[in-house]
């Protein structure tokens, strides 16, 4: 898989990991083998439970004590499986740097960033101290694209953005000049424009330092953007491996084909041939009207406008995609529509009721006309309630139905989201992520709402699950004809579902219009940057997008 004339820095052979009991059934990684060559990026892709992270952590010897590891992991010829803990500690941070998924939680909250990087250096380079150590920390921070190194070094994690923290994390991973870097979902928690910068930084490291990078990800777009070679894993087994171009071009295994097909596509930029036909009378008595609506929060004594003069409407039966990065105010708009946060100025009305002027009872009535689906179904369903109780709760609150009627309705709703009726007696922890999100959708539809607000409903799900949930949402929308506000950071998902798109940036609406038009030929610079930054699951197309993104960044 890597060129034959290069000696790999890391060789994994016949690696198996199992937890708890004994026997084949408990294996989460089964006979995995690969080579990681210097100056190359090898991507381990797979959905949750594929064993990709466990594989990476077993290289570092960082699995829980209950894990049993067999096989061989050789770093520069030295065996790491079963190595003494002192030897493994010298490898961790010294020979192999690591970048984790959530930069916000991957740093210790109580220490400044500079101190945490210095700590990583001191473990492996005892001689370095004082001013020389601080200078080294600043040099590292500057080298990862943080020119304000002194301030960053003195900041605590909560004072920095996700992008800054991930760069600092990469600086820490580089601190002892490692031969390899393990990047475990390094951009999953980041916005697309920030993600593009981080991927570019990793690419630069590979090219300039010759660092070998083991990239763990679930995102085919990220693989297409950064990786040279790819290994597709499923349930602990390698189903396919090879050079990225070859695997994407002609996947050999059925699973890889399914995985690639499940990724929503964004289409080529500048291609506006598909013009969406508006589904129904979008302008006749809209369900939602926002006119110059603002939402403000008080932070440290000063008012911050989370939403600033937003104006758009959602017609009956129309699906409007609300896109934007974190902090753009997209979720705040959803919360304002159900009255969870007050609208400070401007007008907002739902189902003909002006939210600012409505009394308590009227607001309550409006809420009964809105269904809400949240991002993480694991935390939006009460773990102590059965599925049936959760779905029936809106009925209990807003209708006078008898217990028998409610049970019948729950059964009906479960059937609509294609879950068996006996799920009503189960608890959330007994369900998979996709099943839980179906339950959340059933609950949102219990009162046959005029408006469904879906706030990142598929972000926590694997792509194949995401595809089926999106399909379900589409079908239900067609059948019931509710209006839908679909909030998402994922442009491809929005393109697939939405009739119209509203692009939000720092609380302001920067662009809106038919989805196909806006996402294919954006008029605003910000929308163009956002689109160019979103990676697509096609190495060639992605290379072109990357160039476009670089040009847009350069003129900023």
């Amino acid at each position, binding site marked *: 898989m890597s060129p034959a004339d290069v000696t790999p820095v890391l060789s994994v052979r016949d690696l198996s990991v199992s937890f708890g009991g004994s026997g084949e059934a408990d294996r989460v990684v089964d006979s995995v083998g690969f080579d990681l060559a210097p100056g190359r990026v090898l991507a381990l892709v797979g959905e949750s439970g594929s064993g990709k992270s466990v594989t990476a952590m077993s290289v570092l010897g960082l699995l829980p004590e209950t894990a049993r590891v067999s096989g061989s992991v050789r770093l520069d010829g030295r065996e790491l499986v079963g190595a003494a803990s002192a030897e493994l500690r010298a490898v961790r941070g010294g020979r192999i740097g690591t970048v984790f998924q959530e930069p916000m939680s991957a740093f*210790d909250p109580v220490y400044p960033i500079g101190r945490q990087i210095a700590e990583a250096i001191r*473990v492996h380079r005892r001689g370095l101290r004082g001013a020389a150590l601080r200078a080294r920390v600043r040099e590292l921070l500057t080298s990862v694209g943080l020119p304000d190194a002194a301030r960053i070094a003195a900041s*605590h994690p909560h004072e920095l953005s996700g992008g800054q923290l991930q760069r600092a994390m990469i600086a820490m991973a580089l601190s002892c000049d490692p031969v390899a870097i393990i990047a475990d979902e390094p951009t999953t928690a980041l916005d697309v424009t920030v993600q593009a910068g981080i991927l570019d930084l990793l690419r630069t490291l590979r090219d300039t330092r010759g660092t070998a990078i083991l990239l763990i990800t679930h995102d085919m777009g990220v693989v297409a953007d950064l990786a040279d070679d790819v290994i597709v894993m499923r349930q602990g087994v390698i189903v396919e491996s090879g050079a990225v171009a070859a695997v994407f071009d002609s996947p050999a295994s059925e699973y890889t084909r399914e995985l690639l097909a499940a990724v929503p596509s964004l289409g080529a930029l500048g291609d506006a041939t598909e013009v969406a036909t508006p589904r129904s009378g979008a302008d006749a008595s809209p369900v939602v009207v926002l006119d110059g609506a603002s939402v403000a929060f008080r932070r440290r004594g000063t008012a911050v406008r989370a939403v600033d003069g937003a104006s758009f409407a959602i017609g009956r039966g129309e699906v409007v995609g609300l896109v934007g990065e974190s902090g753009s105010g997209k979720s705040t708009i959803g919360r304002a529509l159900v009255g969870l946060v007050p609208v400070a100025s401007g007008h907002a009305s739902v189902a003909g009721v002006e939210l600012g002027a409505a009394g308590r009872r009227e607001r309550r009535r409006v809420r009964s006309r809105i269904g809400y689906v949240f991002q993480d179904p694991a935390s939006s369903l009460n773990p102590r309630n059965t599925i049936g109780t959760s779905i029936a709760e809106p009925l209990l609150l807003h209708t006078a139905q008898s217990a028998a009627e409610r049970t019948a309705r729950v059964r009906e709703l479960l059937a609509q989201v294609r879950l068996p009726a006996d799920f009503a007696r189960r608890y959330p922890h007994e369900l998979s992520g996709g099943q839980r999100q179906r339950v959340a959708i059933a609950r949102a539809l219990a009162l046959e709402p005029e408006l469904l607000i879906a706030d990142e409903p598929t972000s926590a799900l694997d792509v194949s699950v995401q595809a089926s949930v999106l399909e379900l949402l589409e079908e239900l929308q067609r059948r019931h004809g509710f209006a839908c506000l679909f909030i998402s950071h994922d442009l491809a998902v929005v393109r697939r579902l939405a009739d119209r798109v509203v692009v939000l940036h720092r609380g302001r609406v920067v662009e809106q219009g038919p989805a196909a038009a806006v996402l294919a030929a954006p008029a605003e610079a910000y929308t163009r940057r956002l689109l160019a930054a979103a990676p697509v699951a096609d190495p060639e197309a992605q290379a072109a997008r990357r160039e476009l993104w670089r040009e847009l960044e350069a003129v900023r």
Partner: protein
Amino acid sequence: MRIARLVTSRLVGVVLVLLVVTAITFVIFYLLPSNPAQLSCGKPCTPENLARAKQFLGLDLPWYGQFWEFLRGIVMGRTFGTGADAIVCNAPCFGYSFQLNTPVTELILTRFPVTASIAVGAAALWFVSGVAGGTIAAVWRRKAPDRAIMTVAIAGVSSPAYLVGMLLILLFGFTLGWLPTGGYEPFGDDPVQWFLHLLLPWTALAFISSAVYARLTRSELVEQLGLDYVRTARAKGLGEGAVVMRHGLRNALIPVVTLFGLDLGTLLGGAVISERVFSMQGLGALLLDSIGRLDLQVIVGITLFSAFLIAIANVVVDIVYGLIDPRVRAA
């Protein structure tokens, strides 16, 4: 600058809280059906004597007048009665015990060192042993050290203070004869005797409280050790000791320190049971005696003093919290 403003605003808060506490205790104790004038009237208690006692104590005034006199006494001092038998109570006057012929302020100040010696020593002991025990239990969780420590902790949590105290006296005082069985020696008189006399009350109190701290430390540390930043620390190549102490424990201690401040503040107001068991004349013993004698002025004084300590402890905890958790400083 911001810290200074925080401290000032919190201290103003403390004054307000104390004012409310004063009002409530005043209402409860002074408006109770018990009659202080009757108690200090002497025998035979003729109606004239009773009226004179009432006037002397200021009980002839309406309740708000009494409250005002009490507040004024704290700031300016107070004189009970007039002429030759007038009793002067200097500021800050928290009342006067006519049964002990001593101002309440003086009583509290003489008793406080005893209670403070017990409380501070015991708190230091339980903090150190509780945190140490909890840390060991968390690191070796579900193994022998964890089980052993948590078993002892359950025994500690469920033991009454008087029982532990008396068992300690029985073992170390009478059977082995190593330590004095009770009483208090001032530190200034003989530091060694001071220490020896306090060792048993410290141990008794610490045994009970360290159990709570061990359990809290254990659960906090187990949670912290499962978090992402601990994995990062391990991935840097840090040894397990540095991972646990420098990262895990540092974060796990934040809620423990909060509880510690409040517990210490409460205990400083009087270790009632321990003082009784070890025959030490601290605030707790004074409070018990005063309740027995219905010496209302002393009861009110001690109640206020305890409230003051707890309010101060709260402020200190808030400030310390800001120092040990940078996220709080930003908010």
